[in-house]
C-alpha cells in the first residue's frame, strides 16, 4: 500500500476516524495504531508480520533483561546478544544470497567445483528500518539514554508505526518512546502537515516519476546507446529523482505522523546545497547518518584516536552504510566512495577549512560536492559494476551529437529539483502561515483540489518508492 494511492487514502480515513472517535483514550488510540500498522504491513505479505512481531518481542525482552541485570558485563552481554540476533535476522533475509553469490564467485576464481545453493529468500519490506529501530532501542537502554519500555503496546507501536515502517525516517527509541508515555498536549499541526503531503506528492508523482521514465531508466538500462550529454543529464536526473522520491516519502511520513499526534525527526535539508561532503551527510537521510554516527562511528572510536583511526572509522562506517542500502558490491563501492571522500576532505581541512569563505569558494565547493555525490550515484543506480564502468566510459563520447533522450520537460524537472535546494527556509514557514488562516474544511477542500491536479499531472499508477527495496 503506497502513500500516493486511493487505497491508502481510504486506510488513512479509517485511522483518522478511529483517532477522532477515541479522542482522549490514549491507550486505545495506540492499540488501534498498532493494529492499523500491522494491517498496513500485511498488504505487502502477511508473513512479514511474524518477522516484525519477532523483532519487537526480541527488543522488548532484551530491554527488560537489561533493566534487571545486576552488573555491567551482564547488561553488555544481553545487549550484544540482542544486537547480534537483530543483525542475524537482517543477514539471513537481506544478505544471505549475496554472500552465497560472492562465495561461489570466489570458489570459481580459485578453481573449486562445489557451489553453494541459493535460498532465494524474499526480502521483507522495511526490514533494514525496523532492525535499526530494534538496535536503537536496546542500545539506548543499555547506555541509559532511554528507560526500559515496560509497556508491550508502546514497544509494538515504536517498532511498527506505519508512517515510518517501510522506509523511515529511522526514529530513535529515546526520541519516540517518551511520546508514547502520555498524550501530547500540543495541537495537531495541520497546515504544515498538509503542505508536506502536497509537496511530497508533487515531488514523487510528477518530478521523480517523469525523470525516471523519461530519462534515467532508459539511459541507465543501456548507457552505451547514448552520448556524454545524455549520460550527464541522466546522472543529474537521478540525483534529483532519488532526492524527490525519498524526501517525498519522508515528508509524507512526517506529515502523517503529525496528523496522528506524533513528532518525527527531520530527514532531509536541501542536501545538494552542501559545500562539504560532511555537510551533505548532515542534510541527506539525516536519521540514517545520525544513527550510523551514534551507533557505529562513535563506538568505533570516532575521531578520538588520531588521524589514521578517524579515517579508518569514517571508511568503515560508510562501507557499512553502503551495504545497509542493499546486498551488492555496487553499494559497497558507493559507501567506499563516500567514506574515502569524507576521509580526504578531513585530510584537506587544514588547507580548505571546514567551511568555504568567499562567495566564489562557496560556489565552487557546492559544485564539487554535488558532482562527487553524482559520481557516487552512478554506482548506486547502475545495475552492476560493468554497467557503471560503461556509463563512466561513455562520458567521453558523443558530445557533438547533442541529446537524444533528454527532452526539454525532463531538463526542466531537473532544474526545478535543483532550484528547490536553494529556496529560503522561510518560504515554507510563510506558506504555512497562509494555509493556517483557512478553516479545516477550507484546507481540506484546497488540498483535495491540489491532489486532484497532481494526480492528473502524473501517470496512471505509482511506482514504488526507491527506498522500499532497502
Amino acid at each position: 500500500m503506497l502513500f500516493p494511492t486511493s487505497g491508502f487514502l481510504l486506510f488513512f480515513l479509517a485511522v483518522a476516524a478511529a483517532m477522532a472517535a477515541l479522542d482522549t483514550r490514549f491507550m486505545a488510540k495506540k492499540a488501534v495504531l498498532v493494529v492499523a500498522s500491522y494491517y498496513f504491513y500485511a498488504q505487502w505479505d502477511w508473513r512479514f508480520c511474524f518477522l516484525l512481531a519477532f523483532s519487537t518481542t526480541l527488543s522488548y525482552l532484551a530491554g527488560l533483561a537489561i533493566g534487571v541485570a545486576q552488573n555491567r558485563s551482564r547488561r553488555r552481554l544481553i545487549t550484544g546478544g540482542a544486537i547480534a540476533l537483530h543483525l542475524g535476522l537482517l543477514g539471513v533475509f537481506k544478505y544471505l544470497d549475496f554472500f552465497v553469490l560472492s562465495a561461489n564467485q570466489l570458489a570459481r576464481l580459485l578453481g573449486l567445483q562445489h557451489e553453494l545453493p541459493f535460498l532465494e529468500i524474499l526480502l521483507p519490506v522495511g526490514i533494514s528500518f525496523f532492525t535499526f529501530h530494534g538496535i536503537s532501542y536496546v542500545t539506548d537502554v543499555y547506555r541509559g539514554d532511554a528507560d526500559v519500555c515496560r509497556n508491550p503496546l508502546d514497544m509494538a507501536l515504536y517498532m511498527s508505526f506505519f508512517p515510518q515502517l517501510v522506509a523511515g525516517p529511522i526514529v530513535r527509541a529515546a526520541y519516540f518512546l517518551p511520546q508514547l508515555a502520555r498524550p501530547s498536549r500540543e495541537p495537531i499541526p495541520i497546515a504544515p502537515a498538509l503542505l508536506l503531503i502536497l509537496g511530497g506528492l508533487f515531488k514523487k508523482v510528477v518530478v521523480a516519476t517523469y525523470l525516471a521514465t523519461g530519462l534515467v531508466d532508459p539511459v541507465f538500462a543501456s548507457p552505451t546507446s547514448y552520448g556524454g550529454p545524455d549520460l550527464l543529464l541522466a546522472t543529474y536526473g537521478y540525483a534529483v529523482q532519488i532526492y524527490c522520491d525519498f524526501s517525498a516519502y519522508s515528508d509524507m511520513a512526517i506529515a502523517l505522523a503529525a496528523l496522528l499526534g506524533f513528532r518525527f525527526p527531520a530527514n532531509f535539508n536541501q542536501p545538494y546545497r552542501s559545500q562539504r561532503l560532511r555537510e551533505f551527510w548532515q542534510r541527506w537521510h539525516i536519521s540514517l547518518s545520525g544513527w550510523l554516527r551514534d551507533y557505529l562511528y562513535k563506538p568505533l572510536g570516532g575521531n578520538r584516536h588520531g588521524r589514521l583511526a578517524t579515517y579508518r572509522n569514517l571508511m568503515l562506517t560508510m562501507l557499512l552504510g553502503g551495504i545497509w542500502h542493499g546486498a551488492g558490491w555496487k553499494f559497497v563501492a558507493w559507501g567506499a566512495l563516500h567514506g574515502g571522500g569524507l576521509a580526504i576532505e578531513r585530510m584537506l581541512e587544514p588547507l580548505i577549512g571546514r567551511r568555504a569563505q568567499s562567495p566564489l569558494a562557496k560556489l565552487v565547493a557546492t559544485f564539487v560536492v554535488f558532482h562527487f555525490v553524482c559520481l557516487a550515484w552512478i554506482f548506486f543506480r547502475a545495475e552492476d559494476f560493468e554497467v557503471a564502468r560503461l556509463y563512466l566510459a561513455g562520458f567521453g563520447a558523443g558530445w557533438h551529437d547533442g541529446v537524444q533522450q533528454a527532452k526539454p520537460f525532463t531538463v526542466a524537472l531537473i532544474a526545478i529539483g535543483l532550484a528547490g535546494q536553494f529556496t529560503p527556509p522561510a518560504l515554507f514557514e510563510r506558506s504555512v502561515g497562509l494555509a493556517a488562516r483557512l478553516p479545516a474544511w477550507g484546507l481540506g477542500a484546497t488540498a483535495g483540489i491540489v491532489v486532484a491536479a497532481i494526480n492528473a499531472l502524473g501517470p496512471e499508477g505509482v511506482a514504488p518508492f526507491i527506498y522500499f527495496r532497502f
Partner: protein
Amino acid sequence: MVVLERELRKAPVLLAPASTPDAIPLPLRRHGGSSRQVLALSLVGTLVLAIFASRDLSSWLDRLGDGPVMGPLQHAAAAWDGAMDRLGLTGMHDLLRRDIERLLDWEWGAPP
C-alpha cells in the same frame, strides 16, 4: 487496562535529550487543530478529490480486478465519473492531462 494505565504514569524517562531536531519546528506546531478537525478535513478532501479526480477513481477501481463486490463498485464509479463529466467537473483533469502530454512530447527547437 487499569494496569496499563498505571504503567503509563511510570512513563519511560528520556534521560539524555535527543539531539535530533523535529521535522516540524516548534513555532509551526503552536497553532493547529484536533483529531476531529483532521478527520473533517480528510473527509472534505476525499469528497473534493472524488469530484475532481473522478476519472482516476474509476480507473483505480478497474485496476483492482473483478469480483462480486468490485463489479457494482466499478459500475458506480463509472456512473459517478459520467455524472461529473456532464457537470463539466472533469474539465480540470482533462486539461491538465492534455498539457502534461504536450510537455512530455515537447522536443528541442519546437514550441511546447
